[in-house]
């Protein structure tokens, strides 16, 4: 049994006029501490699958296991979820934004300030605890969102295109930071992205999905040599473009 297991996941969305299958027969396993990516054309249900793993809603059929425990809306595992935008609360200062998860879970109040400061240092921000989100740049805000996600010490991190709204420079820096931080904490992570390069640069395995309905099409193992490098250095490595070509061709063949 792997750390994260998906068994026969089917999911359909219902509207008053039709039922649409978005996910069909998904089976996969992810090791503890592994970083994987989900890529695929739009409409392949990547984000839906992420929400199901998070336990935000149950799949129409199938089961999700995290660390041996079955996940349901009643029994959510402790997951960290990063969205396309930071969604920091504009009316809370940075410190309160980071500790909101701890507050919700009613963990002890005293340690919050310490936790917030330590996490801010971890993500490369200092002396911004009492600032408000609007005073920070997009890249800094997404760093704060990362700190907020890590604050509750989640078992697994789900990243839903968290870099897509950033400028290219911030994106590259943040990719390095995320990989480095998750390695340091030995976190398991699933990244959903449109960006093949990003998927190769950050992950150990890339899961390619096809659309209508979303099915797992192929799994790519990223070469060992690339896995050791930071995302920025992966992009410079000679082996990078071969992997890129492989995935690109496969993605093209899906139409």
């Amino acid at each position, binding site marked *: 049994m792997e750390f994260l297991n998906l068994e026969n996941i089917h999911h359909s969305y219902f509207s008053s006029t039709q039922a649409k299958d978005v996910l069909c027969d998904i089976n996969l396993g992810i090791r503890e501490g592994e970083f994987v990516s989900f890529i695929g054309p739009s409409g392949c249900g990547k984000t839906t699958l992420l929400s199901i793993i998070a336990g935000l809603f149950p799949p129409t059929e199938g089961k999700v296991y995290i660390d041996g425990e079955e996940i349901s809306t009643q029994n959510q595992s402790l997951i960290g979820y990063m969205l396309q935008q930071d969604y920091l609360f504009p009316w809370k200062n940075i410190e309160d934004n980071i500790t909101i998860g701890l507050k919700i879970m009613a963990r002890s109040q005293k340690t919050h300030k310490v936790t917030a400061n330590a996490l801010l240092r971890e993500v490369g921000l200092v002396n911004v605890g009492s600032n408000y989100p609007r005073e920070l740049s997009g890249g800094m805000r997404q760093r704060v969102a990362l700190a907020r996600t890590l604050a*509750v010490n989640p078992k697994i991190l789900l990243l839903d295109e968290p870099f897509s709204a950033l400028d290219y420079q911030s994106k590259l820096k943040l990719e390095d930071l995320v990989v480095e931080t998750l390695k340091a904490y030995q976190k398991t992570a699933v990244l959903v992205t449109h960006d093949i390069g990003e998927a190769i640069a950050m992950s150990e395995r890339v899961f390619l999905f096809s659309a209508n309905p979303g099915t797992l099409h192929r799994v790519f193992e990223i070469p060992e040599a690339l896995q050791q490098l930071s995302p920025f250095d992966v992009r410079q490595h000679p082996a990078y473009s071969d992997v890129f070509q492989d995935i690109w061709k496969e993605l093209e063949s899906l139409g």
Partner: protein
Amino acid sequence: MDNTPFKQYQQMLKKEKRFVRLYQLIILLIFFGGWELLSRFEWIDRLIFSSPTHVWQTFIGKVSDGSLTLHVGVTLMETIIGFIAGTLLGTLIAIILWWSPLLSKVLDPYLVILNAMPKVALGPILIVALGPGYFSIIAMGALISIIITTIVVYTAFKGVDPNYSKVLQTFRATRWQIFKEVILPASFPTIISTLKVNVGLSWVGVIVGEFLVASKGLGYLIIYGFQVFNFNLVLMSLLIIAFFATIMYQVVELIEKMIIKNNA
């Protein structure tokens, strides 16, 4: 470094502000001065339109015999209570509707009807049901703003970006926590803007209520002045209402500045 472009810009701003204030003052003077002159030269009917000096004399008279404080106090109390009650109840109903989507679907057409109906038309019924006193007048001041508050605030609750709630859901937040941490604070700007509307509405409700039954208050003074054909009294009451309505509005703006300074 006295003449930097920045300094010039600041001076320009200051100058503009003075300019605006000056013209605002001029309009005020023209209004009252013109009114006084038109009345003095009898270009308008002095009996109906009175004049600033007569209104002022009435005002001094009413202040010195102590009756004005009583009337103003009563109306202010009724308006403020009606305003707060209307806003709180309206928000409370909005919370209940947000809590139960099914209930909100069921009640939707009734809200539309209640909103379209002129609430002041309920005045006579209120007075019979609650008795001809403060209570029915306050009820009127509240009733007039409840439904519109409910609709606007509920719409604001529903308009909050669901991704903010999603963030908290991933921390296993309860529905109440989501409401307290996201939905309510995100809706503060809208709630404040309904407060501004409600200030005006509550005055309408209370004054109409006083028209119908009261023996005290500014609405009573207006009706009384009308009945004895003392328009000095009517116009004085109007000016006092304008004055206090403006102050209430300013107070709401002050609260707005305090609450939502970071709600960008």
